């Protein structure tokens, strides 16, 4: 009887001690904010285009953390979906067409002759990539433009074009080799049986 009581007493004591340690650790090492949101946000392309239906990338990251689908980001495309799937350990799904399709990287270009200087695009640009003043010609800083399209719609004279960023010698990258060619699978005689049958 005493052994049983002793055992129970010991366990109670242990649980109290560990509970105290855990409780202390919880307070001492408390993490401010939601780290998973930061991680998701880091994977998103930060175009701030709102095509996902959220006002910016971070709100979408928060929505994903709360269980929204990961395939609502057209600018990120399949690679972002893959990265998110890896991070969240969910299945990678194809891009949701309702939110737009993946396009090549583009930048906004203002046809400067036609610009009337209304500053509407400047107000629309989420990354302050448009330069100009009221009644002065505006221009896009191409390096800062994320290609989000948000400036196109407000333009009263439709003088903003989205231009695809072409590949230059500096941005060109090597193609991936085709891999093991189909023909090379048949170099061993026994592999060719299917053909021999005919």
């Amino acid at each position, binding site marked *: 009887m005493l052994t049983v009581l002793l055992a129970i007493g010991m366990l109670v004591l242990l649980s109290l001690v560990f509970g105290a340690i855990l409780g202390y650790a919880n307070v001492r090492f408390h993490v401010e904010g939601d780290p998973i949101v930061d991680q998701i946000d880091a994977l998103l392309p*930060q175009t*701030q285009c709102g095509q996902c239906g959220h006002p910016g*990338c971070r709100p979408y990251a928060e929505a994903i953390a709360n269980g929204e689908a990961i395939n609502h980001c057209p600018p990120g495309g399949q690679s972002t979906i893959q990265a998110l799937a890896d991070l969240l350990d969910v299945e990678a799904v194809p891009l949701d067409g309702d939110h737009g399709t993946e396009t090549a990287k583009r930048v906004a270009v203002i046809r400067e002759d036609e610009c009337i200087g209304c500053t509407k695009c400047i107000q629309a640009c989420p*990354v*302050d990539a448009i330069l100009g003043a009221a009644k002065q010609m505006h221009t896009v800083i191409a390096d800062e433009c994320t290609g989000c399209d948000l400036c196109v719609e407000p333009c009263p004279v439709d003088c903003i074009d989205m231009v695809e960023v072409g*590949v230059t*010698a500096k941005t060109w990258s*090597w193609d991936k080799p085709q891999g093991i*060619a189909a023909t*090379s699978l048949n170099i061993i005689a026994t592999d060719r049986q299917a053909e021999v049958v005919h």
Partner: protein
Amino acid sequence: MQTASIFSFHGGIHPAENKAQSLQLPLGRPSLPSELILPLGQHIGQSSRPLVKVGDSVLKGDAIAINNGFLSSFLHAPTSGTVSAIEERLIAHPSGLSDLCIILTPDGKDTWTTLEPLNNWQDISKTDVLAYLSEMGIIGMGGAGFPTQVKLQGAHKNPLTHFIINAAECEPYITADDMLIREKTLELVLGIEILQHLVEAENVVIGIEDNKPTAIAALKTVLTQRNSNIQVAVVPTKYPSGGEKQLIQLLTGKEVPSGQYPADIGILCQNVGTCVAVHDAIKLGRPLISRFTTLTGDALNASQNVEVLLGTPISHLLDYADANPNALHRLIMGGPMMGYTIDSPLVPIVKTSNCILAASKKELPTPAPEQACIRCGMCEQACPASLLPQQLLWFSKSQEFEKAEHHNLFDCIECGACSYVCPSSIPLVQYYRHTKSSIREAREANVKSDLAKQRFEARKARQDAEAAEKEAKRLARQKAAPSKTTDAKKATPAKAAPAVAEPASDDSKKLKVDIAIGKSKLKKLQKQLLEAQEKEHVEDINSLQLQVSDQEKTVASLEAQLANVAQAAPAAEATPAPANDELKKAKIDVALIGVKLKKLQKQLDESPDDQELKDKVAGFEADLKAAQAILATLGASAPVASAPKAAANDDLKKLKIDAAIAKAAVKKVEKALKKAEEINAPEIDAIRQQLQDAQQRADELEKALANPEAATQTAETTTAKAESVADSANADAAKKRKIDLAIAKAGIKKAEKNIQLLKDQGKDESEINASEWPKKLIEAQEKLATLESEQPTPATAKTETKAVPAEAQAAADMDLATQIKKEKIAVALAKAQINKLNKRLENSPEDTNSIRQEIDAAEKRLQSAEALLEKLIHSQTNMQENR
């Protein structure tokens, strides 16, 4: 001359050398091509910026492009001629893409520009020498084309133990460096000496492979002659001993740590070509405009080395080396191991082109198809960088970039040794290149997205701050508004004396803005009216017409104020010019109002029954007269310079604030009205009434605003004391009146509210009428009316005593007009009520009696209102006739 000890490096291969072919013939010098194509990006880093325009003539050695940033270089004209174009041309690049090039058409004279050798290079600072080298367009001629001055600057970070001259030239087929050493031995040694002066290394070693005996002999001869302490280290032939890191390992036994540069371990490496270019630049003053290039391959009948001008198209060189087009299978820029296939022979020679390999099919057959990796491990044995090529292949194939990086993918020098030994013919280097560029792209995208995020967040923070500031300002204004009025009051007597003309001009500015706003509102209202007329909404038309005329009056009164203020201001400044401006303005006003009047009269002619139009015409006539009166006074007072009216301005301000508040109230009610119209609520009439009340109040205030101005203006001739007394008395009276007005209005509002409440509770009109509220409402309205009719009297009296009849009349006119308006509204309202009651009468025959009674009452009201209106109009016309 000493001999250096030789170490060894891991891996390496021994491919067929094939160097003899191109050494059969002596150094060739091809003729000038018909055009030279000079790409602006011939090196690592930023492309150069062109210094010339199309059509410019240049001499041989003139700079045609300037460096564009830190990691960039100059470019010079390889011969004399004219710039025929600056355009996109195919360049020597594995992508086969085009880039911006300067196209130079040679004039055939090959005239050198004035050459200025840097003879005092030993005396001037090393920084100056480096800058000079940069201006001479010198870049590393071995491989990537790293700008030499940048590399030399980097070498100053640590004291150098070794300065290594790379003459290994390990790649098969290429003999350009071999030929360069043979042809320009002395220049090479002098160049090395200059560089040694710049970097001050402990040891200077020339690393050369043992398959160049002639070059080694020539070097040794010169070095012995010059009694130089430059060492020659003959290394065994093994590919890729010419790689920078491999040669360093061979000659020093030290390995360059991953991710670092040779300079970090105290070693500098330079290609022999670069040393000769440095010599030419400093001793001869010649920029880098030509280079040694090997033309070789089975498809060429005359394989040889050539000293070729930069920009020479490869097709020109192929012709020179007697190429056999039928045999030509692949054209390779560089050697067979590290070079790349070029699709077009039109691409030009650049500063880093050391070899053109025109290979036949037999020489360089199409690579065998890739097969599965059999894990033989031969690639690992061959890798000179001691990497694990097989692991890197898996990671590259499965896109596991992070793991590939962990396995030091970026230490791969892409020498191709692994691919060379692979029994499965796997193009390993191609996989690595693809993975490297993918990782680089991802990194760049990351940097860009971080930047975008930063900018987005900065923008958000800025917007939030702006919003907060606005809110704070709004609150501050709200708080300041009441205290300001009292302040102004206190300050009035004090401020009466000092001459400050500024506020007057400020006021006029403000007034101008107000006028502009009022005009735009007027336009909007007119538009609405038009729309309503088109759609035949009778009620809307009535109310809108009233609003329009209100707004017109407001604008007119504002203009009148502006004239007054402006009149005060120039008077204070004692300059006739502004007064003349005001005169002009007043004249314009008169003209404007005249035009408006004409327009209205025309309309009136078309529809003579329209009472509204008639009223409007009358109003405009009054406006016109007022404006003419102002013009007259202006004409009289313009030359008179008198004391400033600061006190008046303070009062003005106060009144203006009140006016603004009243306007805001008007707006608020207008909004409510709109809303009510939208939902077709039954309380529209009540709200309309409120709106009119509010508008009236705003008008009154504006008028009050105009009156003190008139007063102050006329008081110009009297003493300051008398004036301030009069002003304060005036202000007191105005205040009292205002309080009364406010009380009356509050009573109206309260009554209306209660009526509304009753309506809401579902009680019908008869019940409401039975209650005391309608009575109270009417009482309050009456009181308000009487107060309002009293209101202008003191001002008028005052102005009359001051003997300015025109202004008094204008004020009286305006007052009359307001009353007329009010009565019109009452008439319209009564009419509407009658209509409504008639409708109800039709719908509900049960309580005919009570409704009839109501109708009678309403008709009575209508009659009395109409009578009053007639009287008012009559008195107005009388007044106008009297004038």
